[in-house]
């Protein structure tokens, strides 16, 4: 049982929670995730460790309410418990002094990008971050991202805040002006990561994405999370979640993400109907 110490509503459908999870906080690194189970009949779902405090023994998760499990989780309040939190899982993001780097976060993807930018900056990289939201109401963690980057660029789809457009629009301009970018980290919806990958391939810039495959075990024993990378089958949870974007078969990933569409709808309808 893991206690919720703090809960914050970050925007429409976006929630952050600070959890008491000492053994995870002790060793979590940017890029890792946990698998949680909210209730006895619940599903196991992966969520990134968006922040951790080794001294206090806490981790932060940030999630978007999109289906039954995330809705159930959002109903929990400070002082309540989450049944299971297993982790930290997956391999930490490879971070060293690269030089000039860009971190791209789309929507909920900003939460996992944050500890990565922070560590990149700590390691002495020149970090430019680009974060994208649907509109002004959805903006969260702006201050945090600012402090974790040397330069922060913001885009909203409707132009209500920052630049109008997608993160890829901002990235496109940046790639034209900044010629010494050596590495790009992109986390967000699969379509966004694919668009970033297509764009950076032309410039030959190494691009790392953190994949969001469906998972069951999170420890490499079921194969639910398998993806094709460089023509080979990999398990996102144990071989990733970070992969070289230019090697990932995003079309396959997107198809696999949609496998349970029908069942997810059934679960959500019953949930909304009060079941």
């Amino acid at each position: 049982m893991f206690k919720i110490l703090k809960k914050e509503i970050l925007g429409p459908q976006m929630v952050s929670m600070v959890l008491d999870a000492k053994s995870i906080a002790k060793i979590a690194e940017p890029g890792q995730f946990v698998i949680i189970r909210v209730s006895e009949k619940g599903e196991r779902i992966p969520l990134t460790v968006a922040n951790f405090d080794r001294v206090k023994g806490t981790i932060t998760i940030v999630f978007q309410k999109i289906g039954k499990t995330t809705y159930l989780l959002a109903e929990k309040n400070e002082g309540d418990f989450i049944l299971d939190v297993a982790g930290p899982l997956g391999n930490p993001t490879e971070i060293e002094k690269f030089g000039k780097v860009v971190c791209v976060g789309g929507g909920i993807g900003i939460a996992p990008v944050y500890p990565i930018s922070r560590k990149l900056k700590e390691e002495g990289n020149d970090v430019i971050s680009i974060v994208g939201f649907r509109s002004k109401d959805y903006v969260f963690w702006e201050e945090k991202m600012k402090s974790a980057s040397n330069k922060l660029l913001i885009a909203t789809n409707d132009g209500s805040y920052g630049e109008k457009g997608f993160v890829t629009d901002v990235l496109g301009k940046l790639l034209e002006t900044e010629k010494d970018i050596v590495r790009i980290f992109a986390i967000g919806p699969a379509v966004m990561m694919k668009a970033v990958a297509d764009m950076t391939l032309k410039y030959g810039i190494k691009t790392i994405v953190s994949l969001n495959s469906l998972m069951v075990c999170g420890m490499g024993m079921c194969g639910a999370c398998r993806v094709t990378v460089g023509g080979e089958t990999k398990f996102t949870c144990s071989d990733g979640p970070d992969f070289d974007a230019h090697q990932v078969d995003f079309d396959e990933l997107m198809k696999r993400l949609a496998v349970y569409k029908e069942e997810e709808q059934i679960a959500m309808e019953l949930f909304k109907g009060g079941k």
Partner: protein
Amino acid sequence: MSVNKKATPMKEQEATERRKNFLEVPLGYTKEEAIIEANRCLQCPTHPCIEGCPVHINIPVFIKAIREENFQLAVDIIHESNLLPAVTGRVCPQEEQCQVVCVVGKIGDPVSIGRLERFVADWDIENRKKGNTLLPKKEAPKGKKVAIIGAGPAGLSCAADLARFGYDVTIFEAFHVAGGVLVYGIPEFRLPKSIVEEEISMLTKMGVKFEFDFLIGRTRTINGFFEDGFSAVFIGSGAGLPQFMHIPGENLGGIYSANEFLTRVNLMKAYKFPEYDTPIKRAKRVAVIGGGNVAMDAARTALRLGAEHVYLIYRRGRDEMPARAEEIVHAEEEGIEFVLLSNPLRYIGDENGFVKQVECIKMQLGEPDSSGRRRPIPIEGSEFTIDIDEAIVAIGTIPNPIIAKTTPGLKTGKHGEILVNENMQTSIRGVFAGGDIVTGAATVITAMGAGRAAAKSIDRFLKGEI
């Protein structure tokens, strides 16, 4: 005295009925049936059955106790060598172990040792429910901590013995429940989860502690345990890494590893979706690839989820199937369609990325290979397709590499199995291993035997004897 040549039959759910539910198939002996069957044992002085059992249960003596209706004595005798008799009595490949050598087998059916073991264990569970719990005696506390990795049969039995020897034992388990393959792999209709739970609850009563959601190699490393004050570590992490064939289309929607399929259904109870949140595809035409116990379990599970056709595609013949004979018969009775001497070449998908066909090739058997079984060879030009909307790949699992990868100096063999000496010691002092992580996928009883052997070695190690 003349012995009845026929074994006392055990009642079963009818095939037509059971293929629609997840309830247990064989129903167990009544007291009267157990005594009749116990009387078939000759109490022969050579008792080869004991040698046949990997943990050497004193079989004639426990059977004699059944005859005399002293069931508690029978329980105690079994418990001396086997902590999970309700499990092994159900899933042991008895026909290849204790029963294959039984003397009565020379004139008729061997004594149904497994069924008798199950009867005794179930009697014990009922008796415990009435509050008559007898905990095994424990030695005085030795003031030393031992960490056990994995709550499968190997880890559980190692923990139980160490607790009896007086050690302070904690089991670290990656999943949220204990049992290993017993809870996520073997289906409810062969091994009810309530029975596994009940057997495991004995460990808690004996003072064994459990830490769930704890993945060694990630949450903590083996070296970390020694820093935390543990004096010895036992690795019983099993052989959970699913193998795929790496043929085109294998990542299409609707294609599962048997591990994923069974974990969703058994551990996460996807067969009760949407009451439980984890979904599973309810397919109409299912292909299961493989011929072992796991393939049979997956096929029979798919049937119970409502499939109209379940094709079990196996590259050798029926006689070469590694599954237990009893399970092959059960599968056939329930209507699983065997597609023998055939091997998948590729999967064909629809426009949404869901599997719709599997293309196979016919095989013939050639010379025996290193495993002693005749090697299957493809017959050129014999390709054929089957329409399916789901496929389950059950071609085996190998040890999960995560512990080896995160433990410098831990020696492994060519399939990633952890190497141990005759005392179950690994290449790192104070670290022991046993079960499927050492042998590759094997059986419940061999894993238990390994866990117990390791407990003895750990005791000797901590006393400075090895």
